[in-house]
């Protein structure tokens, strides 16, 4: 084998990517710390934190995330479990459906939902429609994460064991399935929360004041607080992604254990 070290070509690309990915962050950080007096300070952050609309919109987005997570989990955990247990033939279809939200632009889904349900006032008038649609937008991430988690566990044996001691299906889901894929569920939750907290298209076109909609509004009027918001949002994304990574490590460690037992 030839050189085991990185070539100049490799290093150039890595440096380019690092520079390109870090510079906007640096710019945003600097912008958010400008006070207009030529000195740096936390004025922009103070403005944001003291704005009641900041708290309201963030709280609203978090509630939406909670609703989305609840519906997603209730819908997907039993479905993915069943596919892995008894219904492998169904997998190609659900695989296909689950990538659709990645190729269908969210704005098309927004227009479609607004048009399809426009006479169903009770559904379309409240934030519930947003949560229901976010379940679809999150589907590619939630399905994949849950499926990967479930594949790693031998549910056939576990289910047979549970059934032989007389457990019902709801009990199996609650006491066998969920505890065994808790890491996957946690990853899926974190990914969903990231998505919901950052989603702008649907929320703005359906006229709800979520966190990104508030952020966009601030951006139209105040430049430095907007940069501060971008930093806050970046920190939040970073935290949730770090969570996904850590949870992933936890899941990996668990899998090795299972392999050892078998």
């Amino acid at each position, binding site marked *: 084998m030839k050189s085991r070290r990185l070539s100049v070509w490799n290093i150039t690309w890595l440096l380019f990517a690092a520079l390109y990915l870090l510079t906007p962050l640096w710019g*945003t950080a600097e912008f958010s710390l400008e006070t207009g007096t030529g000195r740096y300070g936390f004025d922009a952050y103070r403005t944001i934190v003291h704005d009641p609309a900041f708290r309201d919109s963030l709280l609203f987005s978090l509630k939406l995330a909670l609703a989305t997570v609840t519906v997603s989990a209730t819908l997907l955990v039993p479905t993915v479990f069943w596919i892995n247990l008894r219904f492998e033939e169904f997998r190609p279809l659900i695989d296909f459906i689950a990538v659709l939200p990645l190729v269908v632009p969210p704005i098309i889904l927004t227009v*479609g939902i607004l048009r399809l349900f426009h006479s169903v006032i009770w559904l379309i008038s409240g934030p519930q429609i947003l949560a229901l649609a976010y379940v679809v937008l999150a589907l590619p991430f939630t399905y994949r994460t849950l499926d990967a988690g479930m594949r790693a566990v031998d549910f056939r044996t576990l289910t047979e064991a549970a059934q032989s001691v007389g457990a019902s299906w709801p009990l199996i889901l609650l006491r066998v399935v969920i505890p065994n894929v808790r890491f996957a569920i946690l990853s899926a939750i974190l990914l969903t929360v990231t998505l919901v907290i950052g989603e702008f298209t649907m929320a703005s076109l359906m006229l709800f004041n979520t966190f*990104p909609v508030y952020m966009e509004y601030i951006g139209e009027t105040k430049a430095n607080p907007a940069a501060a918001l971008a930093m806050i949002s970046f920190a939040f994304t970073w935290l949730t992604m770090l969570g996904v990574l850590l949870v992933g490590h936890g899941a990996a460690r668990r899998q090795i254990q299972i392999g050892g037992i078998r």
Partner: protein
Amino acid sequence: MVSVTQTRRDDPARASHDRHRARTLRWIPVLPFLLYVTLFLLLPTLWLAGGAFKTNSGSYTLEHVRKLFDPQYLNAYLTSVKLGLVTALGGGVSGIFVAYAMTREGAPRWIRTTFTSFSAVAAHFAGVPLAFAFVATLGSTGIVTVFLAHHGLNLYARGFTLFSFAGLALTYMYFQLPLMILVISPSFAGLRREWREAASNLGAAPIHYWRWVGLPILLPSFLAALLLLFANALGAYATPYALAGAQINLATIVIGSQISGELTYDPQFADALALGMMVIVAVCLALYALLQRRSARWLR
């Protein structure tokens, strides 16, 4: 258990009926899911196709679809598609080199971990905050703009703005590049060292290895990733909206203003515009399927 098997053996008709019943029953647990995606994903999308051909009073018309070909709207589509192609190829090609550099042997482990986790963050860091970040970087008083102006290159005097095609493309690359890195690096990790060693033992130069082994293996995932990136850029709404408001002529922005604008409100035409976009996505998917089959043949 024993008695069940016996009845089945005794009565083949009944056994087949049971099997059939079991097969039907298996569908029951997935019905809620199917109902859900039908209601909130498939029906809304298909509904547009119908709405595009209807007038406000409900009769059928081709007027909306014809209007799509007005220069203003045609241009919006063209710009969106061009933006999708340029950033998918730009992000795709640079992403592949970065992914190769970080996964190849000899690269320290921390490089790979850092790039992967940072890419995961950056790929999710799209939309409104991304637009602000680029205003702070390449806006008229952004740090890079100021830095370059100090060194004799005044971007804005040369006609660059963040709201131009180039500005948008540079901004989009911020989520395209990390997405490519995330999607393609597992495929690089799948290239076994033994294959390269075998090739070089047989006297193949690196270029031969890539032409006959590396690229054919990577090609299907590369194509899939390109499609993903293209769809990603084509459907972007939050980023251009937060950057330039409703002024910029992109397909998504035009659709948005048709359903939310006060002066431009025309939901039926929004259906037609959305349908146009669906057609573009469908053409890409078909092209992708075709290329995928080609590349599968090339593999053999």
